[in-house]
């Protein structure tokens, strides 16, 4: 296809770089620098998609991020596919594939178009009023039908082939927007020694001023665009200034924290993008922010204002002046203000047919005079009452307006056209300002919201601050910036600016029509198909708040987030309700400013980097020995070590037997370890644990239970007294960080008088736990100088020693019930220590075991695991651990809570053992326990917390918490499963070696 609508050459496109792309399967050409929209327009393609609800044909309306209609699926069907891309922002690249959305079988012939014909029956909110009868049809018919119509584009179905990056950026001044006011602001800021960053979402700077070629706009006697072009060139050499193009601000949070998306690859062809960075999210902290985000043109609201070919006037100007593309051969401009005359003059100069319909009576500005002089036909005091043309506008009907502007009079005039450029004035882009917490004020003269009070150090300059005339923009931007960054002189102080003063516009939110509103379709939200009559319907039904109207009619909830629709919705609401617009407020502008890719928000934190992986110093050994790993918090722990095809069950049975029969070894390095020093260390432990510590001998170990202030078990572990004022505490793996921070909290805030120092040494030590009847023999081999008799080295004691000259701490403590030692060594020797243990234990068949076997072994002994056998609702008394709760101590964390009416109840859930009547039946952890299955409602007494098949007892065992359990020993209870009921008997929770004989074996 040739580009029949490319009228002129411009410097903004690279004419030497012709690019082919596909749209709906058809090949087209454009140039480097074209957006998909400009390239399609140059080929005469206007019809882009179908609207959400009525499936009406829609075309390109704008040239920027406010585009409601021209959204397409990009990147074909493969992994690069992306839904809902605005054709007005997507730059074309060689091989780009784009297709229309929300239409079937094609955008030209769309079955969904039938909705347009039933539209009288489906006004806003119709679905709340129907589909209720008969009830069962909701599930079988109505809901699936509603679901089917959901959505615009299609979700990708393959993983993303591109990468994303994050970067933090700290600067003195961030300037958002590279139009003329942003350029001036950035330049002043950088010139005054501020580390300044200027970002702009386009691929080139200059905003709409850079293609301004009307000789009425001059700065220092040059056409404004030529002057601006020079300034942009100067910027590039400025110190302190960083310019980021293709970077759009997504969110402006409080404390001047801003998020900006830098586009690195979306304009490049796909073959250059695989596994490369696509976008970067800049997390910006700016001391000061200058918003120069500009304004967008308002549409006009009249009957059938949504046809392909109806465009915003300033966009039509950009297409001709920037891209060299004319949007029609027979253009009509429909306006309520002077700015659209620039478009008319620009088209006229290129010999393109254009006429104007103006709802005003007259205007005496230079622009209007120029238009008249150029012979452009102007229909004053007229409004468009209808448009015709299904897939592309063909003609419009205009009528004269009554004096007060509320009605139309006289006869209709038919005007043929292939483009209708509409202009309803300008709306400052205050979205980012309000995102940051800023409050707006309303300016009646031109019916706009403006920044009023801000929450952080920032200013808004240029048209986003309500300055629309070039001289005002420059003058006010300069003076605001001087004030903002405290400087008195700038390069821009004595600029000579001339521009045509534009006259006030005539704002009518909903233009009058000869037909009753009910018979017309004046669209406000083009994407979601909400019309002025929907707004009025909502208000009639009592939805008066703007948020109600928005939600009821879905106005402003499309992918453009109502950038075009919201002001008119507000205007019509205030008119209908008869209240002042300024008093209504606005709906909340929520981040992001334009939709932001999930991948960009996540950055490189995917896959491996989804979460931290913590490894022990012995991890490599486990891996090399085919261990399966269990995630425990962020740790990877060896779970079990299957040997040649063993199942988990088989491996665990083998490991457990070995540990009890001869020797086992466990990597216990993940346990939290806190070094505690200070003259008040014992007193500190007295306060944080339930039991007493002062009398613990040096070199002795003791198990401690830590509660929350609410009396519930929080953590447990063995603490060793290394010296008079020196302890080392161990915590659970998962609890380590929280315990340390909790203890620091108490020390710093509640007990600052205590002389206690805490230092984490979790990572400093590797810990190998050797257990089993032969553990002593193995340690004897490793530490020949150490006396291992019970007199010198009894259970619950500690020795400081050396292995090959390296210091080791050995605790004789046991979590398995076996004679057992925990050897701690500097972690760089951890793997080597482990290997030495394996060597020394070879003759005893030392067997490495993982967490599963550890859990089994401790369950045989009735030792709890905090978090598995407790759930934040268990007191130590509930665990039948009364022995560890000191009655003598005046206070400890959580003590008071144990004496509340509920925590003192005798029939709370208590830890018990459960034995199945069938010894081979293993209860499911989590299974519920009842006494009477028949009684309704069924009373659940508790649940199974831990359950295993014990190879050492040759039967299944389980721990459970059961209501009044401590009084139920010997009682038969039931465990009802989905398909059967299991008979169990309450037992003691110590199943194995209840006299602890093995500890000293």
């Amino acid at each position, binding site marked *: 296809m040739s580009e029949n609508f490319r009228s002129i050459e411009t410097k903004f496109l690279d004419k030497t770089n012709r690019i082919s792309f596909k749209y709906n399967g058809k090949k087209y050409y454009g140039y480097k620098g074209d957006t998909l929209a400009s390239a399609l327009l140059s080929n005469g393609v206007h019809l882009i998609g179908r609207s*959400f609800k009525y499936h009406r044909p829609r075309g390109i309306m704008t040239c920027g991020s406010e585009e409601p209609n021209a959204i397409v699926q990009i990147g074909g069907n493969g992994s690069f596919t*992306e*839904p*809902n891309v605005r054709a007005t922002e997507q730059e074309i690249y060689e091989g780009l594939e784009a297709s229309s959305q929300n239409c079937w079988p094609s955008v030209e012939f769309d079955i969904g178009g039938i909705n347009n014909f039933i539209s009288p*029956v489906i006004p806003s909110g119709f679905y*709340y009023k*129907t*589909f209720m*009868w008969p*009830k069962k049809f909701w599930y079988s018919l109505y809901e699936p039908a509603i*679901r089917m119509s*959901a*959505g*615009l*584009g*299609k*979700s*990708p179905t393959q*993983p*993303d082939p591109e990468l994303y990056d994050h970067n933090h950026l700290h600067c003195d001044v961030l300037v958002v927007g590279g139009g003329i006011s942003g350029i001036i602001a950035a330049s002043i800021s950088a010139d005054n020694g501020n580390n300044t960053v200027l970002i702009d979402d386009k691929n080139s700077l200059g905003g709409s001023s850079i293609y301004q070629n009307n000789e009425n706009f001059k700065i220092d006697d040059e056409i404004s665009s030529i002057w601006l072009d020079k300034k942009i060139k100067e910027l590039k050499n400025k110190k302190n200034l960083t310019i980021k193009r293709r970077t759009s601000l997504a969110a402006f949070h409080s404390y001047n924290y801003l*998020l900006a998306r830098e586009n690195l690859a979306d304009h490049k062809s796909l073959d250059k993008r695989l596994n490369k960075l696509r976008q970067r999210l800049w*997390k910006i902290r700016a001391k000061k922010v200058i918003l120069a985000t500009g304004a967008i043109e308002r549409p006009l609201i009249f009957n059938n204002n949504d046809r392909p070919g109806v465009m915003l006037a300033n966009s039509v100007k950009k297409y001709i002046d920037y891209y060299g593309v004319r949007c029609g051969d027979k253009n009509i401009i429909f306006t309520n203000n002077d700015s659209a005359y620039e478009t008319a003059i620009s088209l006229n100069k290129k010999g393109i047919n254009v006429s104007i319909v103006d709802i005003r009576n007259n205007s005496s500005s230079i622009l209007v005079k120029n238009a008249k002089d150029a012979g452009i036909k102007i229909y004053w005091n007229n409004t468009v009452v209808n448009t015709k043309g299904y897939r592309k506008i063909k003609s419009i009907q205009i009528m004269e307006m009554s004096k007060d502007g509320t009605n139309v009079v006289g006869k209709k005039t038919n005007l043929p056209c292939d483009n209708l450029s509409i202009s309803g004035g300008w709306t400052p882009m205050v979205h980012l300002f309000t995102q940051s917490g800023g409050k707006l004020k309303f300016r009646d003269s031109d019916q706009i919201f403006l920044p009023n009070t801000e929450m952080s150090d920032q200013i808004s300059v240029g048209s986003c601050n309500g300055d629309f005339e070039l001289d005002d923009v420059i003058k006010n931007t300069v003076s605001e910036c001087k004030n903002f960054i405290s400087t008195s002189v700038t390069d821009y102080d004595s600029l000579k600016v001339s521009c045509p003063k534009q006259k006030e516009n005539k704002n009518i939110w909903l233009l009058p029509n000869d037909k009753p509103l*009910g018979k017309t379709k004046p669209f406000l939200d083009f994407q979601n198909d909400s019309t002025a*009559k929907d707004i009025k*319907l909502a208000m009639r*039904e*009592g939805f*008066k*708040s703007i948020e*109600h109207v928005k939600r009821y009619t*879905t106005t402003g909830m499309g992918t453009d*987030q109502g950038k075009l629709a919201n002001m008119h919705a507000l205007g019509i609401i205030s008119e209908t309700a008869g209240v002042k617009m300024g008093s209504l407020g606005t709906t909340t502008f*929520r981040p*992001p400013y334009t*939709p932001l*890719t*999930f991948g960009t*928000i*996540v950055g490189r934190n*995917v896959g491996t980097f*989804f979460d931290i*992986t913590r490894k022990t110093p012995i991890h490599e050994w486990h891996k090399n020995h085919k261990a399966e790993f*269990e*995630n425990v918090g962020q740790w990877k722990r060896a779970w079990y070590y299957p040997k040649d095809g063993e199942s988990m069950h088989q491996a665990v049975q083998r490991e457990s037997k070995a540990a009890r029969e001869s020797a086992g070894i466990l990597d216990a390095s993940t346990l939290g370890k806190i070094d505690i020093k200070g003259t008040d260390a014992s007193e500190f432990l007295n306060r944080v644990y339930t039991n007493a510590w002062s009398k613990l001998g040096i070199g002795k170990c003791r198990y401690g239970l830590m509660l929350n202030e*609410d*009396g*519930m078990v929080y953590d447990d572990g063995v603490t060793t007294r290394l010296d008079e004022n020196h302890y080392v505490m161990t915590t659970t793996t998962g609890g380590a960080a929280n315990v340390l921070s909790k203890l620091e909290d108490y020390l710093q805030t509640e007990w600052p008088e205590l002389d206690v120092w805490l230092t984490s040494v979790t990572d400093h030590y590797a810990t190998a736990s050797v257990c089993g009847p032969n553990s002593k023999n193995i340690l004897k081999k490793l530490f020949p100088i150490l006396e291992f008799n019970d007199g010198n080295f009894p259970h619950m004691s500690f020795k400081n020693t050396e292995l090959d000259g390296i210091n080791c701490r050995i605790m004789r403590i046991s979590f398995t019930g076996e004679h057992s030692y925990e050897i701690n060594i500097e972690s760089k020797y951890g793997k080597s220590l482990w290997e030495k243990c394996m060597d020394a234990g070879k003759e005893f068949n030392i067997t490495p075991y993982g967490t599963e076997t550890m859990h089994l072994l401790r369950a045989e002994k009735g030792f709890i695991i905090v978090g598995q056998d407790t759930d*934040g*609702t268990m007191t130590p008394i509930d665990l039948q651990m009364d022995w560890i709760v000191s009655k003598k101590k005046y206070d400890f964390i959580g003590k008071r809570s144990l004496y*509340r009416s*509920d*925590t003192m109840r005798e029939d709370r859930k208590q830890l018990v053992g459960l034995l199945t009547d069938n010894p081979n039946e293993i209860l*499911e*952890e*989590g*299974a*519920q326990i009842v006494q009477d299955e028949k009684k309704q*409602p*069924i009373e659940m007494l508790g*649940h199974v917390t831990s359950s295993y098949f014990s190879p050492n007892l040759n039967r299944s065992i389980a721990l459970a918490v059961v209501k009044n359990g401590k009084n139920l020993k010997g009682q038969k209870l039931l465990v009802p499963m989905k398909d059967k009921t299991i008979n169990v008997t309450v037992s003691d929770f110590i199943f194995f070696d209840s006299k602890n004989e093995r500890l000293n074996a």
Partner: protein
Amino acid sequence: MKNKYSIISLLKNSLSYHENWQQAWRDPEPKKEYDAVIIGGGGHGLATAFYLAKKHNMKNIAVVEKGWIGGGNTGRNTTIIRSNYLWDASAGLYDHALKLWESLSQEINYNVMFSQRGVMNLAHNLQDVRDLKRRTHANRLNGIDAEWLSTEEVKKFCPIINTSPNIRYPVLGGTLQRRAGTARHDAVAWGYARGADAMGVDVIQNCEVKGIKRKGDAVEGIETTKGFIKTKKIGVVAAGHSSVIANMAGIRLPLESKPLQALVSEPVKPIINTVVMSNAVHAYVSQSDKGELVIGAGTDAYVSYTQRGSHDVVEGTLKAILELYPIFSRMKMLRQWGGIVDICPDASPIISKTSIKGLYFNCGWGTGGFKATPGSGDLFAHTIANDEPHSLNAAFNINRFVSGDLVDEHGAAAVAH
């Protein structure tokens, strides 16, 4: 009821260009006195008023709302409805609500689009498995539908989940409640308001409560921006602002109000036909009738009434979404927002009398109040009308924080709502 909504009424009204629809609710000025006043025009407050009028014949009542009805957490949540709670008290409460949801559209003649597409909770570590199985067993015995799914069954039920064993926290299984699902959040507030209004309840918007007037240990009325309103019974359903009202009445509550965020993607054609929640890999997602992915983020840890949370929370949530659904990487976030949720130490609500006669609180719903809306309203209405709790909300009294008899829903089987 005033003009009944149906396809017939839609057709009839289309003939007059929909210009003859009645107001869904009036816009009344407050009367001098009511038999009861509900503070807070969210779903829970409006439902309370609806059931007070419908079941307890209390029609001279008002709902006062600071802003616009349904503008708080009702209109800001991710609309998940389920009843698969662990403890008996919670299961009773939430399943009562779920049963009401099942015929709510018909009851209030307003289509709340309750969609029972199922809610799946995923397990990612062994303790998750234990906790979720424990909950499944408890649910089954409590008569609540719940199934345990293996990893393969999870994949079958929702094929787009990444169930590879090689991800950081592989899916080890999950639970499914098929009766659970989602509803259209705004419709719930609007439907109850319309229903209550039809029975004579005054729904008064833009009416901020400025004070609670007490005489001794009983309430006398409320000071509002629209003047003093006399009443002997005040039901406070003010969600994030509960403590503000409590402070006016001179009582303290065990609440903290924190920002909770949520977000939606751009709309796409149907891609996920259920609700999937994951606690360990903190993410939950469903797809709305418009096609947006509706994604719940977490709460921040600090008190804030700003309705905005920190970006880290959103980033963390999307990170989890991409871990479980790598295909969503190129999807785009359209809109994010925050609400203020009032959280109790045990993650269970308070539906209770207070030490002040005639003052009732319904609060502490934290991140999960939407699902309970009909049940909460019904039981709170019962409590207000009878000055005694219903057996289903007896456990959710304020005194539990003194006795220690908490309903600890995060201690046990912590599940994001």
